[in-house]
């Protein structure tokens, strides 16, 4: 049998990864604003429902228009990811098909029925349905989109923390054994809560930024001030909640994906009483020499903070990259195997799968049972059987390290921004400080960068695994020609960039028209 790995062009793997990253990054440009604006426009329409003032109706309609533009542009951009699964990641797609089927089917049904029904009532139903029903439709549109996101994040979380499934060597598939374990795993809950809240921050930054543009232009001042109040209150609340949920996410990462945490922290050699790096001069263009360096250079750190973040104990043990490669003992006394041992276990599982398939062809049920038994013992480490060098299991540290700091730093900036906006709204005159208006405007693109950084931390940090510990990228990928993946990469680049340009253009036109633009 030809060794397919040798035949595979490794740059094809990188093109397939780049294409997936490109598609996900563009898709994620549309999603946060949809989810974030849904909350803000829902609150505005609630104000209209409670007060009956036309001012609030116009305000809610304006933000719904911007929501509609973004919603329309984002439709079906995520479906391309599923195309890529079937073509570029066919082995992965086959292996996860039974686990992914349920969440993605629910997502599709919810998205289609809930969103399409209530979006129609929201946009077409003014003066046609009762105020209460319209308000419910507006909230349900946002809820439908949020529930959609939940199922996608459940699928993503399962890749990071595969639970509730069993590998069936007959079908060569992971089959779901517990829907609850998959849907309610701690990683899924943390990921959903942190992601959903972060989208409210993006929506709030967008709202406040647009309002500040009106203040700079001295247009629609009362509308801008009223919208800003809601935007800033939502934004400040969401930013603080994002900090809390982020802290819990970091704890969960520490427990379930220690290599990701080590990469986020550029922690080469772990231990107890670990300090949290605020900033350090990690070379952004080169994987650090973690085997020989004691720690990242010029490191400024908060004592004990990493131990507390990762273990909720100031003196807790946090493994570094080298500890994970060499094996370590956890605080509770359990021993985490070395990479070498995991590789041996993984190789046993792969050989057992080969033996099972051979035995199946011959109809040798005793040999099948024996192979099945070996697989059951070692399947957890299946993916390690493909690892040749320790460097293969270490994610690219500079991206994880800096993306994490951009995410956290951006979150702190937004807390400050919203606090300042509220201070000027309630204690001073918000129409006067131009520097604040410009800052809020500048924060719109920053919010997107911060949001995408969060995605980078989550996805770069779990490399090389498409399914944590079970399937590395170079096994999940299809044996395709590089050229075909390159062509679709550039097709997507053109398609998405055009769509983004169209969206920005339409959004800017609608913002220039203002809240009375529809009249």
């Amino acid at each position, binding site marked *: *049998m*030809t*060794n*397919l*790995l040798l035949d*595979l062009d490794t740059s094809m793997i990188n093109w397939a990864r780049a294409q997936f990253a490109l598609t996900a990054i563009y898709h994620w440009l549309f999603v946060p604003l949809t989810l974030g604006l849904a909350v803000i426009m829902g609150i505005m329409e609630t104000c209209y429902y409670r007060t009956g003032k036309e001012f609030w109706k116009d305000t809610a309609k304006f933000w719904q*228009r911007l929501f*509609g*533009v973004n919603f*329309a*542009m984002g*439709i*079906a951009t995520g*479906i*391309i990811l599923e*195309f*890529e699964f*079937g*073509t*570029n990641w*066919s*082995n992965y*797609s*086959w*292996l996860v098909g039974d686990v992914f089927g349920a969440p993605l089917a629910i997502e599709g049904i919810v998205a289609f029925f809930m969103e399409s029904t209530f979006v*129609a*009532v929201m*946009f*077409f*139903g003014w003066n*046609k*349905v009762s105020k209460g029903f319209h308000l419910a439709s507006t909230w349900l549109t946002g809820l439908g989109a949020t529930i959609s996101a939940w199922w996608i994040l459940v699928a993503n979380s399962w890749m990071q923390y595969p639970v509730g499934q069993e590998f069936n*060597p*007959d*079908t*060569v*598939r992971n089959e779901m054994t517990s829907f609850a374990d998959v849907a309610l795993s701690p990683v899924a809950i943390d990921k959903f809560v942190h992601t959903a809240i972060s989208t409210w921050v993006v929506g709030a930054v967008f709202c406040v930024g647009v309002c500040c543009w009106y203040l700079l232009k001295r247009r629609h001042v009362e509308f801008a001030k009223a919208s800003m109040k809601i935007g800033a209150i939502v934004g400040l609340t969401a930013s603080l909640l994002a900090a809390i949920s982020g802290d819990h996410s970091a704890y969960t990462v520490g427990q379930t994906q220690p290599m990701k945490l080590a990469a986020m922290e550029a922690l080469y050699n772990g231990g107890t009483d670990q300090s949290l790096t605020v900033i350090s001069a990690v070379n952004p263009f080169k994987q650090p020499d973690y085997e020989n360096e004691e720690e990242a250079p010029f490191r400024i750190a908060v004592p004990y903070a990493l131990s507390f973040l990762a273990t909720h104990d100031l003196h807790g043990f946090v493994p570094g990259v080298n500890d994970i490669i060499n094996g370590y003992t956890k605080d509770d006394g359990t021993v985490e195997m070395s990479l070498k041992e995991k590789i041996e276990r993984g*190789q046993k599982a*792969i050989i057992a*799968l*080969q033996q099972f*398939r051979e035995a199946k062809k011959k109809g040798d049920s005793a040999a099948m049972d024996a192979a099945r038994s070996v697989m059951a013992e070692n399947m957890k480490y299946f993916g390690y*059987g*493909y690892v040749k060098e320790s460097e293969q299991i270490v994610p690219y540290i500079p991206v994880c390290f800096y993306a994490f700091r951009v995410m956290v730093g951006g979150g702190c900036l937004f807390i400050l921004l919203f606090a300042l906006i509220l201070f000027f709204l309630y204690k001073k005159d918000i129409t006067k400080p131009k520097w604040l208006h410009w800052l809020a405007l500048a924060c719109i693109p920053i919010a997107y960068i911060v949001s995408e950084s969060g995605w980078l931390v989550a996805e770069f940090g779990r490399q090389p695994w498409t399914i944590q510990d079970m*399937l590395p990228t*170079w*096994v999940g990928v*299809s*044996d*395709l020609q590089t050229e*075909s993946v390159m*062509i*679709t990469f550039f*097709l997507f680049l053109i*398609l998405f960039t055009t*769509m983004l340009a*169209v969206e920005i253009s*339409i959004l800017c036109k*609608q913002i220039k028209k203002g809240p009375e633009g*529809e009249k």
Partner: protein
Amino acid sequence: MEKQGFWQNVWHLYYDGFRNMTIGKTLWTVILIKLFIIFVVLKLFFFPNFISHHSKKGEEAEFVSTEITSRQ
């Protein structure tokens, strides 16, 4: 009678909604072009199902097991 009234209302909601669209017309044009590109051009010509193109129906598991065990 009440049921008929409900469906008539639904029809008018959509009919009037689409007829009176302003920005919505532009958005629908963009959506339709995008869906055409995604589902007709990209899916049909660039994103075939790799496994079904390389294995017979019912032999997909064998194909995938060969793929993944031979990459060790």
